[in-house]
């Protein structure tokens, strides 16, 4: 425990917390005895992979157990009030006024039918802390502190009229409305782009500092937690692994598990150069423009080449046209102008006009493995169908091919052959998605944010698998991502996109060394680093007032 916080200033104390969840007609332990002490003004970072119980502990800090879970043991003491035995009405009077919660998706947490400021003032008016007009003035002050544009006006908009990053800041302001003693941030920046993430992080850090609010910051991103937290607690499967102050934790992790988390970002593979012997690019995107029906142009003169056996990373913020480019290549969205060439031959713009062999060549792996695999179809059919469809395999030959593919993606064939997708974990599902793409025996695969929904350790496994498959089978990848750490580890070439245009492209080493295009520079410098002073330094460099707005260069 750092000496900065005094013993008498303890705000929240959780002792031997146990939470159970109901599944398959029995109660299963989710949280197996976690202790936690939080002082006034302290920010505690909770990290761990999904299923570690981070959010469950966050909710328990409010005395709340979600549907299907129950607090089965332990103590939760908030400022002298025992929450496990407190009545529902006592707990309700704490929530919102003294403990506030900021959810992952602000867009889903705001009521779309009410103006932002009306939702903001609801709590102070309800608890009779302020009159409505006072609360509105206070809201505007908070908006200003959180550096929202037009603080006097923005609150009178509806949630869909402001951007995601602004909404997340508005939500933080809302949590602040009653000046709570404790705020729980549940992955507040996970759904945001790196450039927007910085604004939100800086805003949250300032305001928490200013009002000496204690906070529990839940995330799976170590670099983010390093910026925000005074203390870090690492969780694994409902148990505490270790806890230490941020600096100590980063420099000197004790447990093996923590070390493995820290080591994830170290995976790198050697960069390949374009073939010099005049080989044709496998996919060549030539000056394509595209728009969704009747809308504005989302792609404007996009061109790039992908050579056999290479990985081209396409990066950019959401809405920059990365996925739309992929849709043009697969033929789901015929471009308005320009063409897609496959080994020098022009592909028909619509997928329905392409031949079986042309379809076979371009396979896709999707971001959300949950929606990419039919939950009611067995693994053997999911993987076997493309092989049967394209190569006409039947009977034992088909079964053999499926076994072979399962071996390729490192899943035991006998164990997974008859399973259904919902019975698999996230990483296993993504592997099945890869196997389905491989079953078509393509030379080119589009990977659409394949690792962004996965935990870091699992994501690293997937990246290693993709790398091995590339070496063994000579595949070319188009790797769509917004995560520059992934780009650093596996890309050969990088294409940077912004507002539907290619801003810059070239080999990775060149792209990561200055001088950059200003937008590339902004993207690169926005990626959080493990250094706890990274955010402070960055803000000093960029100047406090134009952190996010710089994105408009």
């Amino acid at each position, binding site marked *: 425990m750092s000496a900065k916080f005094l013993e008498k200033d303890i705000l929240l104390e959780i002792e031997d917390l146990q939470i159970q969840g109901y599944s398959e007609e029995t109660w299963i332990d989710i949280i197996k005895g976690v202790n936690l002490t939080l002082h006034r003004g302290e920010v505690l970072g909770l990290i761990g992979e999904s299923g570690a119980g981070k959010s469950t502990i966050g909710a328990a800090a409010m005395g709340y157990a979600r549907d299907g879970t129950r607090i089965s043991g332990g103590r939760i003491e908030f400022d002298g009030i025992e929450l496990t035995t407190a009545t529902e009405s006592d707990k309700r009077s704490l929530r919102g006024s003294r403990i506030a919660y900021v959810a992952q998706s602000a867009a889903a947490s705001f009521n779309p039918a009410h103006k932002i400021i009306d939702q903001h003032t609801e709590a102070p008016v309800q608890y009779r802390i302020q009159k409505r007009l006072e609360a509105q003035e206070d809201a505007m002050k908070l908006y200003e502190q959180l550096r929202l544009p037009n603080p006097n006006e923005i609150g009178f908009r509806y949630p869909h009229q402001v951007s995601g990053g602004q909404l997340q800041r508005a939500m933080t302001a809302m949590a602040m409305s009653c000046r709570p003693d404790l705020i729980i941030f549940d992955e507040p920046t996970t759904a945001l782009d790196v450039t927007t993430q910085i604004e939100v992080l800086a805003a949250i850090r300032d305001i928490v500092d200013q009002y000496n609010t204690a906070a529990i910051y839940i995330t799976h991103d170590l670099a983010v937690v390093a910026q925000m937290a005074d203390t870090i607690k690492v969780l694994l499967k409902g148990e505490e692994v270790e806890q230490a102050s941020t600096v100590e934790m980063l420099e000197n992790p004790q447990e093996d598990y923590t070390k493995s988390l820290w080591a994830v970002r170290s995976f790198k593979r050697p960069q390949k150069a374009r073939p010099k012997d005049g080989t044709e690019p496998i996919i060549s995107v030539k000056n394509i423009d595209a728009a969704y029906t009747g809308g504005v142009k989302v792609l404007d003169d996009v061109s790039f080449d992908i050579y056999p056996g290479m990985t081209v990373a396409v990066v950019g913020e959401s809405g920059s046209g990365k996925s739309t480019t992929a849709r043009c290549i697969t033929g789901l969205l015929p471009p308005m102008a320009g063409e897609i060439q496959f080994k020098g031959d022009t592909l028909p713009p619509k997928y329905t006009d392409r031949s079986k062999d042309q379809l076979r060549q371009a396979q896709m792996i999707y971001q959300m493995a949950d929606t990419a695999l039919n939950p009611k179809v067995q693994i053997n059919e999911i993987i076997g169908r493309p092989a049967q469809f394209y190569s006409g395999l039947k009977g034992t030959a088909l079964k053999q091919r499926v076994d072979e593919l399962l071996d390729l993606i490192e899943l035991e064939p006998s164990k997974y052959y008859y399973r259904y997708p919902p019975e698999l974990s996230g990483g296993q599902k993504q592997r099945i998605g890869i196997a*389905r793409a491989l079953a078509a025996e393509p030379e080119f695969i589009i990977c659409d944010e394949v690792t962004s929904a996965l935990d870091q350790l699992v994501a690293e496994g997937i990246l290693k698998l993709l790398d091995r498959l590339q070496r063994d089978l000579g595949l070319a990848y188009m790797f769509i991502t917004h995560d520059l750490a992934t780009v650093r580890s596996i890309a050969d070439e990088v294409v940077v996109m912004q507002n539907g245009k290619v801003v810059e492209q070239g080999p990775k080493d060149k792209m990561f060394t200055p001088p950059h295009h200003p937008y590339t520079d902004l993207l690169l410098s926005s990626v959080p680093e493990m250094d706890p002073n990274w955010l402070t330094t960055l803000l000093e460099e960029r100047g406090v007032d134009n952190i996010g707005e710089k994105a408009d260069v």
Partner: protein
Amino acid sequence: MMFFVIGYYVFLLLASVVLSLFNQTKWFRMVFALFLVSIIVGIVGGAPALRAIAIFAALLATAAALSFAFKEFLILIVRPNLAKELRTAPLTASFGIFIIFTYAIAGTFAPWIAPYGQAEVIAGAFAPADANMLLGADQLGRDVFSRIIYGARNSVGLALISTLGAFILGALAGLLAAVKGGWFDQFMGRVADIIMSVPSLIFALLMLSIFGTKSWVIVLVVAIIYSPRVFRLTRAVAGNIVVMDYIEAAKLRGEGDWYLIRREILPNSTAPLIAEFGLEFVFVFLLIAGLSFLGLGIQPPTADWGSMVRENATLISFGDITPLIPAAAIALLTVSVNFVVDWMLWRSSGLKEK
């Protein structure tokens, strides 16, 4: 009589004491409330009222016991994974399954179960029940019990075929509309709107008076009337599925519409469709019974519950409950199907907690 009244109160009191001793708060509250209500009912209505309560409670208990035993029996004889599902079924659902089974058996083996033929005149008109005739005779002297058994075959069979027809028409159109989209979707939607805009009973009456009352006409007319509802549901359910990435993957693979419908969409939409099937079946059944009652459905002398109610309707003014028996058969089936459908909806809705 005195013994019955005393026994009645003593039983209730003892039961509530025992329940409270075993901490069964919910049941204790119910039994004790019944005891208190019985005191008032006993004063107002006397022994016959108490007797009615006792009989009703006994019937309810019998039905519950029957459902429970039937459920346990089913769990024993079916495959393990189906048995696991059945274990979650409430008593109402197993009661529903039991009734549906009974009707199915009665309908299938009608000629062997019924003592007389459905058109066989064996007694005088409106002859009372005796050893030969369980429920007496109807207005032409036919055995009512035999006609009810045959009615299960005719009415339920016709309703089942009509509902199947409505489902094949509606579900196919809905799935195709969802997969194809564009103008085909619009066109099918407008056709459905037109059919739905005509009041169903009037449409049926019109069609049946034009084309006659042959049973294939009834089946076709009812199937067309009910297909738009199935179409709408199927299209909505499939519409949510066709936007999934796995459908996109299958489309990009070059799969045809029929494969998409059969292998990718149908397995994911069966639960709401089966539940809808149960509901539609009930509506179709009532429509056919209504048509028969109006004289435009199944034609005499074929036994049918709807027309049986109409033919014997005059008896009700003499205080005879014979016309209510086929009506009760309709009601019992309707309620049973709904019990089963409720359970299926509950299973597929994901609202399993609480």
